[in-house]
């Protein structure tokens, strides 16, 4: 038997008795990405680009928790992002909350919206994807409703200039990346994550293994939404002025899904790599080929889906399973 296959056997009982090397690997997975973004800000001066990239890392990882581990694809994932942005803005305006608390309340807003929408988890497949999209659109129309101008400022957007601090917002995004990585590492390695993977493989067999499928899915849904809410909150703080259509833009969902798929859902590293590489390429093409960049980017995504349907990391995993 090859050494890789032996390593797989040794690591298979991961939960509960994890080899020291795996623990060290997990710590690195949580610490290195935020540290990388800290260093990057010293050598690259477009901080808003880096911050947006970090927001997408968090979104891709949040999406990974619900889609990668349970198979539920929420096309309306942007709804939690928008809820987080507005949760923070309203906390600052009406509660005069300090920005750190306002960001946490933004995360809470994402969580509350997810709790309200949890009955959607009764649906599956395309029905769930479309229903979540409809829910995000409904939330957008609610927030941008001119009749709610006194509360949300309706379609006229929100101004957070009173708390604007680009350096602090960048640091908050760095922490967010660490939190997102920690969540996914925990889900990947824990009994909870193992139960989620079992549910994804076969929900009925999981129930007969004693797993409370509804509760496990709901917890994953809430974690995923909270990460998106926090991402929206920090993005709102960083840009300080935004309109409802900017934080409820469907392309935010699409990017998060594409980034997660590109790297490989159900893995820890995949969505991170997906967001960093694809968002980097997106901006590079946008600068170097501004006329053709949508075309080039679209073709690139089609090629990826055709040749790497399970993501970038599937190359390595396929080799591991084959014991090569």
């Amino acid at each position, binding site marked *: 038997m090859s050494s890789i296959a032996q390593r797989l*056997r040794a690591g*298979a009982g991961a939960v509960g008795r994890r080899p020291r090397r795996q623990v060290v690997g997990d710590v690195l997975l949580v610490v290195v990405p935020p540290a990388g973004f800290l260093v990057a800000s010293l050598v690259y001066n477009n901080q808003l680009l880096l911050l947006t990239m970090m927001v997408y890392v968090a979104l891709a990882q949040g999406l990974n928790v619900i889609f990668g581990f349970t198979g539920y694809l929420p096309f309306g994932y942007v709804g939690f992002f928008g809820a987080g942005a507005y949760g923070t803005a309203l906390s600052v305006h009406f509660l005069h909350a300090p920005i750190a608390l306002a960001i946490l309340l933004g995360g809470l807003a994402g969580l509350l919206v997810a709790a309200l929408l949890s009955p959607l988890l009764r649906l599956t497949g395309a029905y769930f994807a479309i229903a979540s999209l409809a829910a995000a659109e409904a939330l957008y129309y609610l927030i941008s409703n001119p009749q709610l101008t006194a509360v949300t400022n309706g379609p006229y957007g929100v101004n957070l200039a009173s708390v604007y601090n680009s350096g602090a917002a960048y640091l908050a995004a760095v922490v967010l990346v660490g939190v997102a990585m920690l969540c996914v590492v925990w889900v990947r390695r824990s009994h909870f994550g193992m139960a989620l993977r079992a549910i994804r493989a076969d929900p009925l*067999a999981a129930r007969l293994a004693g797993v409370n499928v509804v509760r496990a899915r709901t917890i994953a849904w809430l974690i995923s939404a909270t990460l998106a809410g926090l991402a929206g909150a920090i993005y709102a703080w960083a840009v300080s002025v935004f309109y409802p259509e900017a934080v409820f833009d469907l392309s935010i969902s699409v990017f998060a899904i594409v980034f997660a798929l590109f790297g490989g859902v159900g893995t820890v590293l995949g969505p991170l790599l997906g967001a960093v590489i694809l968002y980097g390429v997106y901006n590079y093409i946008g600068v170097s080929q501004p006329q053709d960049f949508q075309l080039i980017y679209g073709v690139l995504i089609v090629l990826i889906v055709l040749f790497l349907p399970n993501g970038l990391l599937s190359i390595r995993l396929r080799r591991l399973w084959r014991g090569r």
Partner: protein
Amino acid sequence: MVASPALQVSGLTRSFGGLPALAGVDLELRPGEVVGLLGPNGSGKTTLINVVSGVYRPTSGKVELLGHDATGRAPERLVRLGLNRTFQTPRPFRPLSVLENVQVALRHGRDARQSPEEILDLCGLGGQGGLPAESLNSSQQKRLDLARALATAPEVLLVDELAAGMRHDELDGAAELLRKLAAAGRALLVVEHLMGFVRQVTDRVVVLNAGTTIFAGSLEEASEDPHVVEVFLGA
């Protein structure tokens, strides 16, 4: 003194679109007993297992499990009460390893202190814990189904065609395993078509036809019962 039933099914019916798949089945299973559930294809054997294990809700009737009313309860609730089952077509968690398949059930079952390795050994899967479940052959996947069910520490086990597709040299081991599980006090309901295996394993049999019980007794008596013979041989 006769032990009280671990599983008691009374007047159980289940219809699909008005068509009765079960039309009033009565069944009793005592601790330490292995009962064979026989019948031609379409007689309602797997439907009975599906209804008792909570996959389908019964149309009417009652299921009592270890003294609790278990009628129409969700599968995970029944697992916690002490019932589990295997599938005719095995359903492993394919992306997980063999060991992880058992660990999931251990974690969410009734006794997490059991050793997953010992359960795998018992089911003839010792030393294969690290393999991806999808790499196992059909017979091994059936044993993994059984291992996963055992990991939840059931007192009543419904076994759906474990022997089907097994090699001859594997059948004796499977029969011995089921007898061992019964000797430990579990009540087993075994759906099987291989009569030699049924003879080896069961204490008595229940025969279904068109969703109703047509016979309950020993296998020898069943083979001489004209109604059973007619159902199986069409005589």
